């Protein structure tokens, strides 16, 4: 962690986060290749967010036979609102898991173990792709900015907390 988390209770299912994520990483609006997603049942309005828990989970990293998932230190600067501001200030330091595309063989081991279903084979590059918190400026949070329904937030774990000092 830090990682982003979608609140099932607050999320309105607007999918702005997926759109911004795709635009940031793919250079075009292709939400089927977003790094996070919100699953909404239109009839019942039951919503389930799917996001990467980064080092708080690490199952993809553990499963990778080629050490292609690296732990990287980043500083996150969040645009817009986020609940952690009071605690952490405007920036948060921590670790994220990123794909080393040169080492990745697209073997698919990580796809099978991901509990939230957010690491996949890229449709054109033939390697795994996943959330990297936009290198410190997460666009999903920036576009989940209705101050009344802010549904995406940043969380940190123990490891990250040590870095804050």
């Amino acid at each position, binding site marked *: 962690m830090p990682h982003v988390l979608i609140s099932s209770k607050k999320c309105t299912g*607007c999918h*702005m986060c997926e759109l911004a994520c795709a635009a940031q990483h793919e250079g075009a*609006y292709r939400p089927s290749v977003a790094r996070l997603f919100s699953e909404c049942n239109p009839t019942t309005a039951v919503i389930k967010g799917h996001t990467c828990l980064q080092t708080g989970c690490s199952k993809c990293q553990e499963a990778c036979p080629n050490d292609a998932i690296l732990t990287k230190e980043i500083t996150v600067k969040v645009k817009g609102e986020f609940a952690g501001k009071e605690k952490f200030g405007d920036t948060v330091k921590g670790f994220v898991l990123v794909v080393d595309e040169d080492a990745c063989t697209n073997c698919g081991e990580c796809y099978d173990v991901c509990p939230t279903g957010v690491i996949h084979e890229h449709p054109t590059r033939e390697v795994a792709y996943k959330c990297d918190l936009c290198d410190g400026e997460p666009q999903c949070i920036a576009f989940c900015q209705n101050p009344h329904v802010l549904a995406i937030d940043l969380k940190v774990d123990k490891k990250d907390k040590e870095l804050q000092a």
Partner: protein
Amino acid sequence: MDFYQGNVLRIDLSSGTSVVEPLNMEWAEKYIGGKGLLLRYMWEEVPPGVDPWAPESPVILMTGPFAGTNVSTASRLVVGCKSPATGILNDSYVGGSFAPEMKFAGYDAIIIKGESPEPVIVTIKDDKVEFVPAMPKYWGLKTSAIEEAMRRDFDADAKTLSIGPAGENELVWACLSTDQYHKAGRGGHGALFGRKKLKAVVVRGTGSVSVGDAKAFLADMYRIHTEYVLTEDNLWANEEGTPVLGQIMSDAGVIPTRNWSTGTFDKMEGINSDAFIKIRTKNRACYQCAIGCRQFHEVDGIAGEGPEYETIAICGANCGIGDIAALSKFNQECDELGLDTISSGAVVALAMDLTEKGIKDFGLRFGEVEGYLKAPQLISKREGLGAELALGTRALAAKYGHPELAMEVKNLELPGYDPRGSFGMSLGYATSDRGGCHMRTYPIADEIVGGTLPPDTLEGKAMKIIWGNPAEGMIGENFSSVKFTGIWCDFWAVTPEQIGQIFKHAWKREFSDEEVFQIGERVWNLGRLFNLREGVEPDDIPQKLYAEEGAHTTGASAGRAIGTATFKAALQEFYQLRGWDENGVPSEAKLAELGVDVRL
């Protein structure tokens, strides 16, 4: 080109075939997308004088250039046809997530023609189009069930645009549904789907919409969101939504009550915003919308989205129903059956009126819940009293010798604003390009909600109907026409300047406010030409809404009348300001000035 996919999918249901054609970019440059591009395609694709029910009469699904991006609220789809109710153009808008999915599948527009020999569902996954038999599994399903079936049988992320039983029975106010509660409600597109034996169009897209420099675009959209979208002016929709209008309209004598016999509803507190807030459970948004106005409610085991204001007015006050559970149930029935609530409520209110006046006993009375709740089902099946109610208000009232009791314009039932309480609405209804509609211009914003224009005069209103009152928020016909090319939602009070800033991303040039307005005026005039070509009734509204003797005797708008002469003069003033002749025909000079590229 960025933002556009450049593809039109043409579906022929008669032969069960489809073909992809390039989008006409010359038309897109003039008419942008949404309403504008739809009308240009309709001019070409609707055979002049065609019977709307005929196989060659198309239903067209059109997106806007910004669907599938971070441009807030611009995810709407417009569905167009020559309406079987009115015989003129009908552009009906629907939110949800269908239009973006169409774009991701690679299409800006889908043109549907022909008539399938057997009930059919058209499924589209990117470039793969299939015609799936709808019998025996899918035909007959209600709207939530067909969507669930498509997510199960076709694709977990399928987006479905479907008809319910009402559409299958070709009811003239059957609507199209998507994401369950979102309706292309007005004008009978669902009836045409039914005639074409088309249960649903289902789409799943995994492709992309390109916007040029995506990071620069994202940065600008972030700016536009924080500065223009997430403002106090727009957040009313998130916090309360359209139910907030109920009490305001009742207090102003504007809410149609008991088939338009008064403008103030004595049981309003049962169905006003406070009452809905008490049963509110959840707030949802359409795709790519930062506002999120869709309010979910639960009462007496009835759970779901809505009702919205128009339903509260026409199916509530206008039927004398102040019982929130009954109203919610009626709304849910209409949603599941695929019925437009405005026309449904209007015809039930008429039947109640005919019963109470002793003209014809339908067993329906104002405020009585039992018969009221059975009506939607009976109408959709044309069973029992439903067989007669399915005629619609105009034909039903005429059948019993009381045409004055039908509250419609050009055979489209009127929504929830009585012009006797807000005079500007009279002209808005009369000149609306699809018949009785509140979405072309909205004098209510300034005459009632904002209080910045006097509600009891037509003085100077013709100008406002055309151009709006931008400084105060009232939308006029020209501006709504350009806003619906985007296709932006009514609930983002976007300005011409902001529209220009967003257009610039697509067309890589500046758009002045004047040009933005001119695009709207061009679209409006194109619509007028289409209606004249197809044969439009004279612009008028039910006489009691303006005649001296039609004034209310009770409620907050009692005693107010526009006056017949005043109304007719305002209509002529409107034509003159539009550059149209006394019969409402656009002049050659006006069409040339606007660059309209078709002629009668």
